[in-house]
Structure formats: structure tokens, C-alpha cells
């Protein structure tokens, strides 16, 4: 299990577009990806739940990856967040 934090830079927070891209990506992995923020957690594959977390600019999210190829996935996700959020 690997965790890392990320501070959201995007003006709109985790809005529909990045949330849907994240969900798409998370679905392609064999391991589980969990998003936590301000006490809330959810499965990153669940688009609606991710959006419902209401993550805004400046919020710190914790991404937890657990399972097969978790190191590879963590790197990929880190890059994803840098590029999109």
C-alpha cells in the first residue's frame, strides 16, 4: 500500500472533466485507488462520489494505492494529478 498527498492547484477543484478522467484511469488499474480529503474517502473509480467530495483548489488530497503494480500506478497517478489538477 502506497500513499501520497497532493495539493489541488486547479481553479475549479476536482470538477467533472478531471474527475471523469481520473475515474477512467482508475478503472484501468488492477489495484484499488482511494481518494481521501477532509475526512471523506471514496473509491476513485466512482465518478459521482469523487465529484461529490467537492475537492476545491488548495485542498490537500491523499491518494492511496493498494495491490498489484502499486508502485507503477502511484507514479502514473502522481503524473496525472500534476498534469490535470
Amino acid at each position, binding site marked *: 500500500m502506497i500513499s501520497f498527498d497532493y495539493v489541488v492547484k486547479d481553479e475549479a477543484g476536482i470538477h467533472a472533466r478531471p474527475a471523469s478522467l481520473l475515474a477512467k484511469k482508475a478503472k484501468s488499474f488492477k489495484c484499488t485507488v482511494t481518494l481521501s480529503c477532509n475526512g471523506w474517502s471514496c473509491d476513485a473509480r466512482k465518478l459521482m462520489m469523487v465529484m461529490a467530495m*467537492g475537492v476545491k483548489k488548495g485542498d490537500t488530497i491523499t491518494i492511496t494505492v493498494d495491490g498489484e503494480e502499486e508502485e507503477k500506478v502511484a507514479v502514473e497517478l502522481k503524473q496525472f494529478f500534476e498534469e490535470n489538477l
Partner: protein
Amino acid sequence: MVNAMKMIRGIAASGGIGKGVIKMFNRPGEFVFQEKSFDKEYEIKSFKKAQSLAVEELKSLYEKARKLVGEKDAQIFEAHSMMVESEDLSDMVMDMIEEGYTAPYAVQKAGEQLSDMFASMDDAYMRERASDIHDITARLVRILCFGSGNTGGEIESDTPCILAAEDLFPSDTMAMDMNKVLAFITKKGSRVSHLSILARTLGIPAVVGLNEQFDCIFPESEAIVDGDEGMVILMPDDSTVQVYKRKREEKLVKIKRLQGMKGKESITLDGTRIDICANISSLSDIPKVLENDADGIGLFRTEFLYMESSMLPSEEMQLEVYGKVLESMKNKRVIIRTFDIGADKSLPYLDLGKDENPAMGYRAIRVSIMEQDMMKTQIRALLRASVYGKLAIMFPMIATASELKKAKSIVQACKKELDDEGLPYSGNVEIGIMIEVPSAAIMSDELAKEVDFFSIGTNDLTQFTLAVDRMNPRLADIYDPSNPAVLRLMEMAAQNARKNGIFCGVCGESASDLQLLEKYLRMGITEISVAPSKILEIREFIRSIDLSR
């Protein structure tokens, strides 16, 4: 597919038997679907299919938008596409399907839950997402109800089918291709509601007023509609199918026998001549009238001319229709009833206001007298058309002598106008009234002196005499045209007609009830007007009775 045969009962609204596949009717803009389902697999399949169709629709929308407004703003469609496929939504929908709900119902409810969740969030952006959810929910439900790319209103079938609807209004049936309909089944409705009357005129079986039993209906399933008994058999088994096959054959034999009545005189054993006429709503009913060898047209309901049009039908347009009808009937009498619409229908070009009791409200002759220009247009058209055949004009809902006087004076004024304009009309146009308001029956001795004929509207006469709403299926037991009070009023009108040398007819539904018909003939009724498909059967009956005994 679930294989349990089930019989449900409603009101026998139009005779005949139809066997086929049930299709649900969806009014454009409205989504109609059952709440509970009997086939989870079907619902799951439908949902998955709808999801992929929605994704396709959104993909092409995305492409279009990209060209129009650029990548960034087109993104919303991609997001919608992801939402449609999101696990959250799918899970919720699948759970509900497992509980026994239909796909559209599940999608609707899941959508509501999700959008409520977003709508209550602090963040304005998040609240916006509630409308995204509405949007994709509506898209999915629409696809589940109508298929991709359709907005409803049409019959989704290449082959004729059984059309099921909560209710069908005149405007719904107007646009329909009746060749695609094997039978009608509705949740609401009564024997005298619009759909029932239309179905009988067209000879299409119909069972209405199914109420809660309507919810047992499963779209795309096989069924037999028995319009004679008021039964619908869902998923009929083989032996039932055989029974109905035989019934149908018997019917065909009967129809063949009745063909022998064509060309025969409508006369009783004791030599009393009766006119067995047809009810029509439009020019397109004429072939059936001629096919069934009617003795005339006893009621041409002109309402449809008004309802089909988005503006007031012009004199020329009406003249053409009336002229064609008169011409096709040659020297047989055609009774055309003037405008008979009230606040229960809405016309875009005429403000009929709102009525607490539309049946007794601002309608029919009352409107005509107030809207004199409209009435004059109709009367002028009728008079001008009278040169093509044997015309009789009938006023509906006459309740007082002064109304009749006013209406007649409008006819006189039109005649004068036409004289001044040099436009010809027949000198033999008969003027008559409907006896449907009890006061008219009671004063029929006075009214008979002022007209050339009466035609009793038993539907409304029964309604008004017994103070019973004929559209309310719960009151079906009270609504009884054979009630002695109703019969007495009819007798009064018939006697007074006879005393004054005018004829008295019946143009209500009850005239096709053979038992009642005999009573009517014994009262002195000499003309009846019924759905064209009943004419030959009635002729056979009349030729077998002896009124002198």
C-alpha cells in the same frame, strides 16, 4: 421471459379480437413507464443497451460541439458520457432492478437521488452538477422509452401492434397511423370516452378502464385483446390462442353472413321503414359508411375539423369537406351537427375559458351563438354545400326555445347574405336539434313546431337526467341509458315529434344495443345513427322484428 398467462379485465369499449405484441404509447415530451417489472434480465439488458446508445449519442454531440465551440466547451459531453457509464449510477440502477423495478424507473430514481445529493452541496459548481445528472437521466430514460434519436408520439413498430396507454386524447389519435394498431388498451377511460367512440367507428378492438390492472402489462409481450368481453389476456398459452382463433373464425363467418344484408331494405316485419344511418367524424370515414350500406349519415361530428386545425377553419375549407360528404352520399340524408366543443378541449384560436363543469358549461350552441362570426362561417359553408346533396343541419345542446330561435335567425341571416352575394343553396335544407338536455325533452311539444326533426343524444341525455358523469368509470353502474326516467323523456320527445309530423331519431351509443333499440322503435323512433360497423347487424335485427305484436 416470464411465462405466466394472466387475464385482466376492463371495460369492453370496442368489439373485436386482436392478437399481437403490446407497445406502450408515449406522448411526445412525456415519459411513461411501468414501475415494477417481471423480467429482471430484460431490464438489465435494456439498461446496458441504453447506456451504450447514450454514449453514442453523446459522442456525436461531442464531435459536433467541438467543431462549433471548440474542445474545451465540448468537454461537457465527454463528462456526460462518463457519468452515463459511471459505476455509481450503474450500481444504483442495478440494485433497483434487482428489487424488481423497471430500468426507466430505476434510472429516474437513481438520478433523482444523485442530483439531490449534488443540489444540496455548498459549492456552486457542485450544485451545477445536479443539472448534469438531470440531463443524463433524461437522456437514458428517453432512450429506454423511445429508442435513440426519437422524441415519441409515433408508434414504434413496423408491424401492427396492440397500443397500450394510460389514456389517449383526440390529439394523440389524430396523428396516428391506424393501420399500425391492432387494438387499444388503456388504464383510464369509459365506453363513451373519445377513444372508445373512435375505436368503434374504426372497428378496432379496445379495452379501457383497466385501472390498477394496467400495471400488469409488460411491454413487448404477446397479448390477446377481447374487445367483446372487455378482457386482455397477457402471455396467452397455446390453448387460449386456439380458443381465440376459433372465436375469430366465427366472427368472420358472421361478417360474411351480414354482407347479405347489403342492398336489403331496413324494414320491420310489419312494414315500418327505419333509417339506419352512420356516425362519422371526418371525410375518411366515408368508405366505411358506403361499405356498410348505410341509409344515410345521422351524425357528422364537425368537431374534428376544428380540432385538427391550428386556426379557425375557413368557409372554403369547410365547404369542401361538407360538399364531398354530401356528394358521396348522393340522395341519402346527411345530418351535420354544428360546432360542439367545450372547455374540456382547448383550441389554440378560441378562448373557451375554464369551466368547473365543462359538460354543462360554455360549449356547443352556446359558443356558436356568442361567436357569431364563427357560426356564420360554418352555416354559410353548410348552406353552400347543400347543393351537392341532401343536407340537414343539427344544433347540439339546445336547452331553451330562445337558443333555438337565435340559431335559426343566424341561419336566416346567412341565407340572406348568400342571396345578396348570388351564391346558391338548396331550398330543402332541414333544420333539427339534438335532444340531449332534459329541458328540451320536456318542452319537445313546443320545440317540435320549430324544427324538421329531433335526434336524441342518449349519452348526454342519460348524463344530464341522472346527474352522472359519463366519463367517470366509478359511476358506470348509475350511468344507464335504459333507466326509466331517461326512457320516459325519450318517449315524450318521440311522441311530440310524431304529433307534429316530424321524425325523431337516436344518435347515441345505445342505439346499437339491440334490446334498447327495440324499445326505441316501439316508442316511434324511426331513425338511428350508429358506428358504420354495426349497421348490417342492426338491419338483420330490424328485419326480424314485428312492431305490431
